[in-house]
């Protein structure tokens, strides 16, 4: 059989050789680059404090409108994790004049979509429609943000959906690892809980809690409206005034919020294994604190992370390309209003869990031990710039990017300075940033998988591994363990 294959191969190779006639053995060099400019946003603040931003981009007949509230999951009371997300999700489930079915029916009849939810530091409601439909869509957007009713039957329905969703996520090693990583890095601080809540906290949330959060944070002087796409600035502003202009600002001051780590900062350098015997693959996470969005080191951080992450970044080079240990490895420096997380991760077969943990720690450490070569850094910067530019090609990308700058109180013109800011980062900056802000020794490792296949090897190197059976995992507390009877 084998011989036959060889014979076949020889025959079939012939045309292959004939085919090999590409006339040139080295790639032709690039021509001179063409230049790009991003659209300039216009903005105005309405008398009620609502900040309105419009970005014109007329190529496709599409408009996206995003209403941002400047608070999200970080304002969840500790025992009510998931409250901000439930509040935002329920906006589209009924107003004083429309029930959930009518809202969906109306927006979808326009061919559009309406979405709402909470993130860290913000909540959002977004409509996305053909430009001819934007007036009707903006009216619906204003209605759901300003007049939601939070009916108890809708609260119950969403509660059950969120619980089911949580059950689905707890079946995946990757999502369990990301929940555990947040608790390990942030402990009992506001960014520590799952954004969508836990089984226990979701069960406690009442319609009254939801209405209270809405009353406190959903107000025009705590909101930003971004319209982008096939719409003139003056038309966007007119729509904003028409549908949001009479939104009353409450007389009481806005509550002040901090998600900063508390004095009792969580302990670092932990190695945690969540044993899930039926896991088809192990999720390996390295997690630690990163930086906040307004940090002066923001661009140094972005560039440092890009050396590690992306297809040809060091993590994927070492873990996927050189060793075939994963379908993909990468990292995220997630910047928030307060210090956010840095996470490096890969999924791998259970047997190689310990090896991948070692590789993650090794690569993070290597970044601070020597500066990258200029020849390595230049392409990584190109990746950042290219990704950023492509993201701005779609109306949704443009609105999202501008909304994020506005949320953090940064100059909207930063989209036109992005390229220069990235280019200004030096190889020495990368090493310095990694040493000061991404120290491997104070990073934590979390592995979720079938522990018996990687634990012995992991323990050889790290005797202090904490092992938590998935059945005993408790995401409500920084200890991560359910209380044992009698304790």
């Amino acid at each position, binding site marked *: 059989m084998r011989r036959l*294959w060889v014979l076949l*191969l020889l025959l079939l190779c012939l045309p292959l050789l004939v085919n090999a006639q590409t006339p040139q053995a*080295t790639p032709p060099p690039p021509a001179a680059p*063409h230049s790009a400019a991003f659209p300039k946003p216009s903005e105005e603040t309405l008398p009620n404090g609502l900040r309105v931003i419009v970005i014109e981009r007329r*190529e496709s007949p599409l408009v996206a409108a995003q209403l941002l509230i400047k608070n999200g999951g970080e304002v969840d009371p500790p025992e009510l994790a998931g409250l901000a997300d439930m509040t935002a999700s329920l906006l589209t489930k009924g107003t004083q004049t429309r029930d959930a079915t009518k809202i969906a029916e109306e927006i979808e*009849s326009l061919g559009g979509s309406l979405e709402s939810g909470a993130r860290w530091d913000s909540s959002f409601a977004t409509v996305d429609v*053909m430009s001819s439909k934007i007036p009707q869509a903006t009216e619906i957007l204003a209605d759901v943000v300003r007049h939601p009713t939070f009916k108890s039957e809708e609260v119950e329905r969403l509660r059950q959906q969120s619980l089911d969703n949580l059950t689905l996520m707890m079946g995946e090693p990757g999502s369990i690892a990301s929940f555990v990583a947040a608790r390990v890095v942030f402990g009992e601080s506001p960014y520590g809980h799952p954004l969508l809540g836990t089984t226990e906290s979701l069960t406690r949330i009442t319609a009254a809690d939801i209405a209270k959060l809405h009353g406190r944070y959903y107000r025009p002087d705590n909101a930003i409206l971004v319209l982008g796409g096939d719409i003139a600035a003056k038309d966007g502003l007119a729509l904003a005034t028409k549908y949001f202009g009479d939104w009353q600002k409450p007389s009481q001051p806005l509550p002040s919020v901090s998600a900063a780590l508390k004095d009792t900062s969580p302990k670092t350098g932990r190695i945690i294994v969540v044993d899930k015997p039926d896991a088809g693959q192990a999720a390996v996470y390295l997690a630690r604190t990163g930086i906040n969005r307004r940090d002066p080191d923001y661009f140094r951080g972005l560039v440092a992370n890009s050396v590690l992450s992306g297809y040809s970044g060091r993590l994927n080079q070492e873990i996927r390309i050189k060793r075939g240990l994963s379908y993909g490895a990468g990292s995220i420096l997630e910047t928030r209003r307060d210090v956010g997380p840095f996470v490096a991760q890969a999924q791998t077969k259970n047997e190689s869990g310990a090896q991948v943990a070692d590789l993650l720690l090794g690569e993070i450490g290597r970044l601070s031990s020597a500066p990258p070569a200029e020849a390595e850094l230049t392409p990584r910067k190109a990746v950042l710039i290219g990704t950023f530019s492509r993201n701005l090609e779609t109306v949704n990308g443009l609105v999202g990017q501008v909304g994020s700058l506005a949320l953090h109180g940064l100059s909207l013109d930063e989209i036109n300075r992005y390229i220069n800011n990235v280019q200004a980062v030096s190889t020495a900056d990368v090493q310095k940033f990694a040493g000061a802000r991404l120290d491997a020794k104070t990073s934590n490792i979390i592995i979720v998988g079938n522990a018996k296949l990687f634990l012995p090897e992991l323990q050889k190197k790290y005797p202090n591994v904490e092992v938590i059976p998935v059945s005993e995992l408790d995401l409500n507390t920084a200890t991560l363990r359910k209380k044992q009877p009698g304790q």
Partner: protein
Amino acid sequence: MVRTSVRLLLSVVLLTTLQLAGIAQTRMPQLTFTDRTLPNGLRVLSAPDHSSPTVAIQVWYHVGSKDDPPNRSGFAHLFEHIMFKSTKNMKSEMMDRLTEDVGGFNNAFTADDVTVYFEVIPSNYLETLIWAEADRLSGLNVDDANFKSERDVVKEEYRQSVLAPPYGMFAYLLQAKSFVEHPYKRPTIGSIQDLDAASLQDVQEFHSTYYRPDNATLVVVGDFDPKQLDAWVDKYFGPIAKPDRPLPRVQIKEPARQKETRFTEHGSNDLPAVGFTYLTPRQADPDSAALRIVDAILSAGESSRLYHALVYTQQLAAEADADAETREDASLFVLTAILSEGKKPEDAEKSLLTEIKRLQDTPVSAAELEKAKNQLITEQLRQRETSNGKALALGEAAVLLGDPARVNTDLARLQAVTAADVQRVTKKYFDDKNLMVLYYLPQTQKQAQEKGGQGR
């Protein structure tokens, strides 16, 4: 994740090419393109668009997982990964150097019928990438170490897409159980066993069999000068000879289903799932347009029938979906529900059947039909915001529908769908004899049943 999206549930990853003007006041931009074929058979479709200084390049090879060699399920997809390794003139990962390193990106995907390689790059690199695509069409030069390590990557992809997610295996089985004869019964990702059996010899053979200019379509959309593009294509692709051997094509026909079939399988999921498939005609069939509308009526958005009935009103399901999964030779219409905590699969099955019957018994209203068409137009507009999206639409029309002009004319087909068409296709295809039902239950339920059985 990067490089390769194997579609398990959907036959083709391509965003749907449905388009529809519908509303008079919305301008639906027509995609103006040039279509030419080189003497060696390479088809070249191109459309200039100078809105950003980038260009999208795609090479569509008319070979997919249905062409996997015997006992080599997953091979077309593994091969796709190997196409990023060394060629005569390029070292491994050089494609990344030519794209990612200059601010562009590359990727590829394998579906049942096609394998597509694509790059988006700053437009001044266009000639470089035309050279590179021609080079890897000319031949590969991969060593065993590279081959084995990439095969390990694909095995991790299998674990990540099939084994780790709680419903990965459900999607896999849904396709596998839906076809009896046609090679579509082997999902694109294949099996670990067959991947382990694949060799470097298979790679060379597959390349020379299917990677030939007359089996390829080059699509270029974005910031370029048409004359210059033509000259570069002639220079780099022109000399590649067309082999005189015939191209093998899958001849197996999937027989019509004669009776309902059902399967029960168990997995690591906590919530049970139910899946239905009906066998439907090939993608180019005129009924595809009406089935696409049925898909939107059943599953597009929260006002869709399945969401409204199963998720919202009855609270039976955490998720409910429908999909007109088109393929070149034979298609599937798929309905799925992941149940809510404590709900029975039998009840979800009943509700799905009720929705099917409603479509068959009562014509959809004009408003509901119009809504579905509006949703499809907007989806189309979103796809075509980027050069890469436009190129995908062109490639799909040319390779899977056999006519690139369908990138524009399918609009009329969708517009023409009536309420009577919707009723007709649901009666014609959603027949009990044409139904496959799959229950995907938690392993724990099986163990509980077995324990119970032994104890008594």
